[in-house]
């Protein structure tokens, strides 16, 4: 029997059903074939709904997972019998005993890894890779995925269905990539996980808790890669370290009334020390080989921030150096913005503002709320309050995220009252 504590949802760690849904899809795909993914997903949903209708009356079975997988398996068999001519494979699968033994404990790294590679197949666009991975491997529903993409259920459902269509057309199978493609395929997966983490971490929109779940899912999937002998490469450890350092600060990021707290204002003692320790361990593991990835540099920046005893003693010079090296590899306006923020700590608001104005000419960040927040901050420091207000108003208009909006409006009010310095 499950205790009520075990079945409680929404604490970011215990997502039993979400995890079951993902695992059931993995196991059934292995038994019946990845080409029947749609039938399998429907069957898993039906089994979960059947449990929802039945368990309130019957109580939870001794082995809920076995109950669910059996129910889903029977539905797949029924469904395929109707659509495909009954064949030996089906009969064999239908009568397979001890299907639950197909789960190795609660983790199935090989299956999950193959499924992650399939979902992050290069035939699919990066955004769709993220959505598909969340849906299939993560057990997230379309309505949980949509807000992360600033999109609606219908559009996300369409994106996922198109992506599945592509996999079908290409006859993508559930297998590890062959040796000469492995590097490129791992990079694609890492990029998708990076996007996934960002969807959760960068305050763009949506429910705070669901966004946190996205971050934890990225951490979980990256951990699978970091522990598998074929995929545990230095850059995989670097990405996982980055996730863990940032993830450790997740719950310190919002105040009591749900408002955003900046790094400078966060209570460092509430950072998750276990995640930081694990982050350090993976950061150490990332320091081998000859290839320095962007993830290494980003992890190093996150490590410097995380390990500094307080905000004011942050080693800005070292962070600036990391940003400069990142920019040399591949210019990105968002990273340039971050670099300028760090620069302002070292050489003051005037020269930082000049560089910011140069960046504004590129026009890539004209829809980016954080750009105007930063600009307003520099202008305020320079006592150019009218311009600071204009910039902050633009920032408020550009943000969709409620805690961030509240935070910015509070700032704007303070600026209007002349309290903000």
């Amino acid at each position, binding site marked *: 029997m499950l205790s*009520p504590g075990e*079945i409680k949802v929404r604490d970011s760690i215990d997502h039993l059903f979400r995890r079951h849904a993902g695992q059931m899809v993995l196991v059934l795909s292995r038994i019946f074939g990845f080409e029947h993914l749609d039938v399998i997903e429907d069957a898993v949903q039906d089994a*979960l709904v059947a449990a929802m209708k039945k368990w309130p009356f019957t109580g939870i079975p001794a082995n809920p997972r076995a109950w669910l997988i059996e129910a889903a398996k029977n539905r797949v068999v029924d469904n395929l019998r109707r659509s495909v001519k009954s064949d030996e494979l089906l009969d064999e699968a239908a009568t397979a005993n001890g299907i639950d033994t197909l789960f190795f404990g609660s983790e199935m790294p090989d299956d999950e890894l193959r499924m992650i590679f399939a979902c992050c197949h290069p035939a699919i666009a990066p955004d769709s890779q993220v959505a598909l991975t969340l849906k299939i491997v993560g057990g997230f529903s379309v309505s949980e995925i949509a807000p992360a993409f600033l999109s609606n259920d219908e559009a996300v459902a369409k994106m996922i269905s198109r992506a599945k269509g592509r996999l079908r057309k290409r006859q993508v199978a559930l297998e590890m990539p062959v040796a000469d493609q492995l590097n490129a395929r791992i990079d694609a997966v890492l990029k998708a996980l990076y996007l996934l983490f960002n969807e959760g971490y960068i305050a763009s929109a949506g429910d705070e808790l669901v966004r946190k779940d996205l971050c934890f899912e990225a951490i979980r999937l990256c951990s699978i890669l970091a522990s598998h002998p074929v995929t545990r490469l230095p850059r995989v450890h670097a990405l996982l370290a980055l996730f863990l350092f940032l993830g450790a600060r997740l719950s310190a990021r919002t105040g009591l009334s749900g408002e955003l707290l900046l790094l400078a204002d966060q209570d460092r003692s509430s950072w998750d020390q276990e995640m930081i320790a694990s982050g350090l361990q993976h950061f150490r593991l990332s320091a081998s080989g000859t290839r320095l990835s962007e993830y290494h540099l980003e992890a190093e920046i996150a490590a410097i921030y995380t390990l500094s005893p307080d905000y004011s003693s942050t080693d800005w010079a070292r962070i600036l150096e990391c940003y400069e090296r990142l920019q040399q590899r591949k210019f990105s306006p968002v990273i340039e913005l971050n670099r300028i923020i760090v620069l302002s700590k070292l050489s003051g608001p005037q020269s930082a503002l000049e560089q910011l104005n140069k960046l504004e000419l590129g026009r890539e960040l004209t829809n980016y709320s954080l750009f105007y927040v930063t600009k307003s901050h520099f202008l305020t420091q320079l006592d150019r309050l009218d311009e600071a207000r204009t910039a902050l108003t633009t920032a408020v208009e550009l943000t969709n995220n409620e805690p961030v909006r509240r935070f910015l409006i509070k700032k704007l009010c303070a600026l209007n009252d002349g309290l903000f310095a």
Partner: protein
Amino acid sequence: MPNYMLLLHEEPMDYSQFSPEQIQAVIGEYVAWRQKIEADGNYVGGEKLKDEGGRLIGSDNGQLRVTDGPYAEAKEVIGGYFTISAADYDEAVEISKGCPHLKFGGRIELREIEQLT
């Protein structure tokens, strides 16, 4: 103490878009409710009625007639029942009010079960 039956009426609905998280939350609420009334000594039993199938039997001008139904498309069906023991209707109502069925849009018909004595 008399026993009461909670007949759970519900409108059949489409659950295909429920997320695993939501499903887990629904089950969790029922489990918590049941564990509470079990701990309080009020729980007697409960069973789920199958969604599919069902027959309606009645007589039509003295002739017995058996028809299939109620169908899942019916506006409202009885999905299942719980039996509880309570001192009186007041207590039975209080217990029923905590039943998650109400939260998820269902109705509860509460009836006292006749006893021999």
